[in-house]
């Protein structure tokens, strides 16, 4: 880019506020100088690259939160200790990644202060160049017209407004001992604020995350219908920070599960479509705070507490009726590595003698669950009878007598009527306290608006109109902060309009070199 001698602006704000005591101003100035390395855009580029590299390592290397640490240890063998000490298996909470984040925060903070003032000034202030400056600037076009200066101005303004420029009239000015009228036309000023907003949003987001880390928590609970639990004592409680520094609190609420159900696709019975938990939340005094059905993507929100439908899993309990009598079976043993249930069904009639135990009839149940057993499209059980010391109906080379029962089905095995009612399924709840969510979302909004504003560019025109011996002369200096080719395209449409409106008597004089940056 070519640059000529700097063009001075007429209006210029004083560098230091006169109200500030000299000592304080000097101290702040020294601090500001000292922070020069922190607010450098070069540091920002280096930090962005380093953060990208760090996160990339986190993607490529197995992370302990996602992969079993034992598996990682086995995979990396003798290098495991070294790589672990470098934090490569826990990148996002490693000391060096945290240091990068802190440095990034300070770079953003200092950089934002540095860029904020010129950006806001450029967006809000109306700066006028003198006619001399406009005429001497290299990036300007000249038009000469037979119209009087006043007539030219009255025709020029609508043309600029038609091209969506905001036009501002400047102070009286003289150039070569003749009066000149100054104008400043601009559009897209808001785009200068965009980067500041985006950076401010990121700072807010980082601060909100820190607030959430000190006050938020997560809890997990498995719950079967009819059961309840206290929020202060869930199955698993994880504060967002180490408990020694965590400052949050847990509400003394009681959560009960009225019912839980899973809905499957009709044509894909192995794929759950949705699952629902009917929850009731009560406060310490027993007042019902909420009674709602939650499902995946539809959590229950109570202030800064949220209850999510996270998962479901069989508990290992199976409900049967054997000869009309209810029987609850529990997974209590295994057969060739497979968990099964083996429970005596007529223990009440059998005496505790050695002979009786030999004749004891037990129900042996092999459960099969969708999503846990490959190829299974429906929860079901396979039931065998174990009498005395062997399976009923067993013979060499022959499968013992058995029944395949789906929930609700009844069958008969060796004279016993067996009805499989249902397996017990527990809902997996995730409970989260996130007091920072509002601030995080607000930050998201600010960042989004800020970055969208950056898409646009600021386009400026400085105009000087002066009466000369050849007629009225118009000098136009043009500048944009980005996308110069697009601006040139626009000017190639604007200038012919000016040419026509001003009845330009001769061809415009054009100097295509770039003007110095403001």
């Amino acid at each position, binding site marked *: 880019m070519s640059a000529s001698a700097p063009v001075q602006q007429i209006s210029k704000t004083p560098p230091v506020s006169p109200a500030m005591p000299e000592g304080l101003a000097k101290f702040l100035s020294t601090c500001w100088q000292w922070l020069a390395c922190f607010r450098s855009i070069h540091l920002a580029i280096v930090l962005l690259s380093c953060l990208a590299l760090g996160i990339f390592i986190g993607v490529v290397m197995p992370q302990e939160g996602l992969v079993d640490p034992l598996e990682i240890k086995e995979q990396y063998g003798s290098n495991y200790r070294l790589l672990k000490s470098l934090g490569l298996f826990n990148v996002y909470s490693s000391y060096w990644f945290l240091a990068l984040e802190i440095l990034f925060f300070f770079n953003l903070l200092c950089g934002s202060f540095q860029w904020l003032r010129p950006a806001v000034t450029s967006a809000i202030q109306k700066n006028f160049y003198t006619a001399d400056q406009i005429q001497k600037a290299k990036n300007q076009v000249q038009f000469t017209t037979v119209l009087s200066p006043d007539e030219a101005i009255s025709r020029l303004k609508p043309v600029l407004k038609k091209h969506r420029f905001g036009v501002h009239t400047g102070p009286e000015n003289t150039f070569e001992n003749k009066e000149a009228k100054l104008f400043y036309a601009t559009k897209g000023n808001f785009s200068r604020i965009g980067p500041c907003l985006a950076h401010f949003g990121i700072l807010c987001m980082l601060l909100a995350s820190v607030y959430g880390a000190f006050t938020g928590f997560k809890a997990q609970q498995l719950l079967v219908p009819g059961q309840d639990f206290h929020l202060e004592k869930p199955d698993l409680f994880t504060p967002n920070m180490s408990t020694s520094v965590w400052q949050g609190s847990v509400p003394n609420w009681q959560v009960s599960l009225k019912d839980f159900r899973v809905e499957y696709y009709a044509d894909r019975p192995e794929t759950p479509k949705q699952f629902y938990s009917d929850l009731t939340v009560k406060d310490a005094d027993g007042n019902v705070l909420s009674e709602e059905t939650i499902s995946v993507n539809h959590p229950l929100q109570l202030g800064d507490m949220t209850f999510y439908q996270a998962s479901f899993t069989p508990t290992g309990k199976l409900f049967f009726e054997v000869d009309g009598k209810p029987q609850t079976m529990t997974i209590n043993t295994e057969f060739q590595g497979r968990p099964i249930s083996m429970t005596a069904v007529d223990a009440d009639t059998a005496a505790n003698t050695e002979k009786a135990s030999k004749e004891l009839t037990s129900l042996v149940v092999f459960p099969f669950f969708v999503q846990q057993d490959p190829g299974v499209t429906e929860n079901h059980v396979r039931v065998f009878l174990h009498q005395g010391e062997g399976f009923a109906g067993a013979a060499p080379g022959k499968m013992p007598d058995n029944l395949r029962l789906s929930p609700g089905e009844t069958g008969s095995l060796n004279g016993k009527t067996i009805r499989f009612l249902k397996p017990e399924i527990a809902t997996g709840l995730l409970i989260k306290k996130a007091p920072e969510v509002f601030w995080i979302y607000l930050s998201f909004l600010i960042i989004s608006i800020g970055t969208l504003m950056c898409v646009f560019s600021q386009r400026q025109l400085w105009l000087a109109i002066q009466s000369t011996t050849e007629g009225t002369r118009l000098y136009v200096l043009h500048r944009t902060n980005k996308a110069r080719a697009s601006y040139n395209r626009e000017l190639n449409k604007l200038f012919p309009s000016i040419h026509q409106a001003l009845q330009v008597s001769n061809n415009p004089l054009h100097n295509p070199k*770039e003007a110095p940056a403001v």
Partner: protein
Amino acid sequence: MTIYSVFSFMNEMQWVHTGMVLLILSLFFNVARVLTKNSLIREAGWGFMALSMISLIISLVLRSEAAEYFALSNMYESMLVLILWMQLAYLVLERWLNLPGFAWPVCLMLLVMLAYDITLPTDINPLQAALQSYWRSIHVPVIILSYALFTLAFVSSVVYLVKDRFHKNNEMDGSGGGGGLRPALPDGLDGALYSHETPYLAVEDSQVRDIYDELTYRCVSLGFPLLLIGIILGGLWANEAWGNYWSWDPKESMSLVTLLGYGVYLHLRVNGEHPPKTLAWVSVIGFILLLVTYFGVNIMGVGLHSYGKIG
């Protein structure tokens, strides 16, 4: 009468194949356009691209009708939407900028992408519970639109680098249509009086190739906020579905890496100390990161976004 019945004289895949044939025709005319300045050839290239896009839209509509949801849930569908966004962005850019040197590489890129896409599994699967949300129809298209713009930025960067390599500074782009970008006056005529029918301002100091630098910047500067907003929308959805707006899941993390990569590009540009050639290379690196995000993580098939797994 449903949409399905109107377009069902061909099935979904036949519409895709039709779109491919139309894309080949568009490529043919856009290559011819480099050799001749006939404006009809330019219009034919543009028109066949528009028809190809319509054809692919119809295939997506038929697919969505059959699936009973907006068909944007697996790799095949997401790539089809990526192609559609790229076509739309190209059609707009082409009307705006009229760049023959950009048109045929985009057509070629789209053709390669579509050819790869139809080799992917096209089964329609029921949606998992986590995917049954209106967020899916918001988050995914926004992200894919940003990918489309970054891909166009990549093509533009490559064209810039090729032109830079062979020093074709005096190429007359923008031929055959009014309002196109035109070359500057030759050196030595600066400050001369000339007719107002001649453009007042040059594109970029007599170097037409620099329009590709600005095109790259335009695509990145729009793609960047879209990717950012897409990631944020994903965060909002994740917070509703999984109870976490950020989980350091491989797909999320790589999206952030890509975002940071393009963030570096924008900061280098704002800094103003780096030549367009360096910026073009940074854009190419950004695109490589995008490929890792889009394909690499899907090939790994791990994490919360594993439903996008290839194969």
